[in-house]
């Protein structure tokens, strides 16, 4: 984000310069301006055309559809806020919201902390074979989410011979029916998220750490700062934009979780792993309740806005209190 601002500043400089500079014949620069306008609008128009058809219209229509009862074929019937009443009175909706948040926290919070620790380790001058470790840790990210969900569905299979059950069995633990147990399901899905994303976030933190100028550390060492002080007062504050980015994307990603429960618990879905998007999907494409599904989409939209705002708010506060320490 810092770089974005810098770049924006740079391009502004260019613009002001180029505005003053051209001292060519007036006639030409006038026609040039017109030509720039024409090609400018032409070059950006594909996005706006696509967005009009596949962005603006569907979004507005979702808000419209949320107030109607519709099975996708027959007539639409205006029902006011009834669709919202229906989902807010459906225990499964609340369960799906709860699941999404719990699974999101289980899958991302420990993951980001581990990623930060791994990045510290991979950034240390004492460690060799860094590129090998980096490669190994990053490899899961190459796997598609569907593949991850399938592999872990088999690892967490309900049978006694399932890998996790067999492992736990060595310690005398009874086999767990992972796909039907309240916490078993959540542990399995959180593990999938953890495994696929931890390397990705490690790489991002690592890039952030490598961008910190080493003379900052040198100066701190001369002033007698301990390793812990260096981490708290240099590394973490300098990493702030990266931490904000990862927390932000992880939060939004976690709120939209779909493939993992959809594959792990089968097409019909089950309450233990039901997520908001899965709830929406089932309502729409399983039961043809397009009105209530649209209402769910709108609720999800507002939930994402609330979480994003909360993220930014906390990110700003944490960063500010630490930055004081640097200067």
């Amino acid at each position, binding site marked *: 984000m810092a770089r974005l601002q810098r770049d924006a500043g740079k*391009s502004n400089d260019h613009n002001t310069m180029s505005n003053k500079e051209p001292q060519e014949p007036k006639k030409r620069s006038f026609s040039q301006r017109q030509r720039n306008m024409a090609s400018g609008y032409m070059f950006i128009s594909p996005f706006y055309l696509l967005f009009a058809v596949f962005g603006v219209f569907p979004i507005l229509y979702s808000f419209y559809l949320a107030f109607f009862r519709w099975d996708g074929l027959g007539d639409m019937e205006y029902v006011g806020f009834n669709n919202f009443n229906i989902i807010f009175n459906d225990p499964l909706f609340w369960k799906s919201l709860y699941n999404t948040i719990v699974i999101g926290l289980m899958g991302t919070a420990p993951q980001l902390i581990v990623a930060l620790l791994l990045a510290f380790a991979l950034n240390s001058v004492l460690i060799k074979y860094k590129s090998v470790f980096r490669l190994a840790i990053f490899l899961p990210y190459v796997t598609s989410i569907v593949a991850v969900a399938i592999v872990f569905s088999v*690892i967490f299979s309900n049978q006694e011979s399932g890998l996790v059950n067999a492992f736990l069995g060595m310690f005398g633990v009874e086999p767990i029916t992972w796909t039907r147990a309240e916490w078993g399901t959540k542990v399995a899905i959180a593990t999938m998220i953890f495994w696929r994303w931890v390397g990705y976030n490690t790489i991002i933190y690592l890039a952030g750490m490598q961008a910190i100028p080493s003379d900052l550390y040198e100066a701190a060492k001369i002033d007698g700062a301990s390793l812990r002080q260096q981490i708290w007062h240099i590394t973490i504050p300098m990493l702030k934009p990266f931490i904000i980015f990862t927390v932000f994307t992880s939060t939004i990603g976690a709120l939209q979780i*779909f493939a993992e429960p959809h594959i792990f618990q089968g097409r019909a879905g089950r309450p233990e792993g039901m997520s908001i998007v899965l709830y929406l999907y089932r309502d729409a494409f399983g039961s043809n309740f397009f009105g209530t599904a649209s209402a769910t989409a709108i609720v999800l939209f507002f939930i994402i806005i609330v979480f994003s705002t909360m993220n930014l708010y906390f990110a700003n506060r944490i960063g500010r209190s630490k930055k004081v320490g640097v200067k």
Partner: protein
Amino acid sequence: METNKKKAPVAKYLVYLGLIVVSLGSLFPFYWMFVMATNPNSMINQTPPVMIPGSNMVSNFQLVLDSIPFWGAMLNSLIVSSTITIGVLILCSLAGFAFAKLEFPGRTMLFVFILGTMMIPPQLGLIPTYFIITQLGWLSDLRAVIVPGLMNAFGIFWMRQYISSAVPDSIIEAARIDGCSNFRIYWNIIIPTILPAFATLGIIVFMAIWGDYLWPLVVLQDQSMHTIQVALRSLMDDRVRDYGMILSGTFWATVPLIVIFLLFNKLFIKSITDGAVK
């Protein structure tokens, strides 16, 4: 971090131990996928589970081919991902060029609008988009995935940032004096300069589209039109699950990506970090 070299060796070995454990945890599912993909179902269901590759590699994969149109699905994924990637690179670099180097009224506002669209969750318009696709007659047609996929706000943002810092205005001015049209400038100056950005954005887009699941699942209902992700899921449908077969399909669908990644891993990792950091 630059630590003093006299740190206790014990701590160093603990760090190594941690890294090794995490690396093994990262790699183990790949190995285990291969073990399952090469063993008969009878071996898979025994306790303790098998840990060595078996001899059923071919026969398990044959079962996959009997169950889903594996090659067709891979081809569909390839068509969708490469068409979208090429389209996005062209459209986003054109728009990025316009936002970075061409003056036109409302430029800032239009750009901020594009940034704003990145905040909208894709599920918000999911249902109406499905009906638009139905109206267009594109259900179970790859166009249903390709055309909406060409809309990429992040790509425009990213290309604008890259072009405004990588292409000096003086070159564009010089080309104009030589009488180049804006499109000639784009074609002969911008594109050669931003090839590294094409590689980076290309990898990000290709990966995202290749792995996309919800939207293809909704619109590509006909089995012959499935992308590989949707096809792989249908391996899980059988009441009696043949894990050897399921993981064989998953394994062979993942191998090409791993090979490509290992060949270009530096570029890959750079792309992912660049995409995140900018």
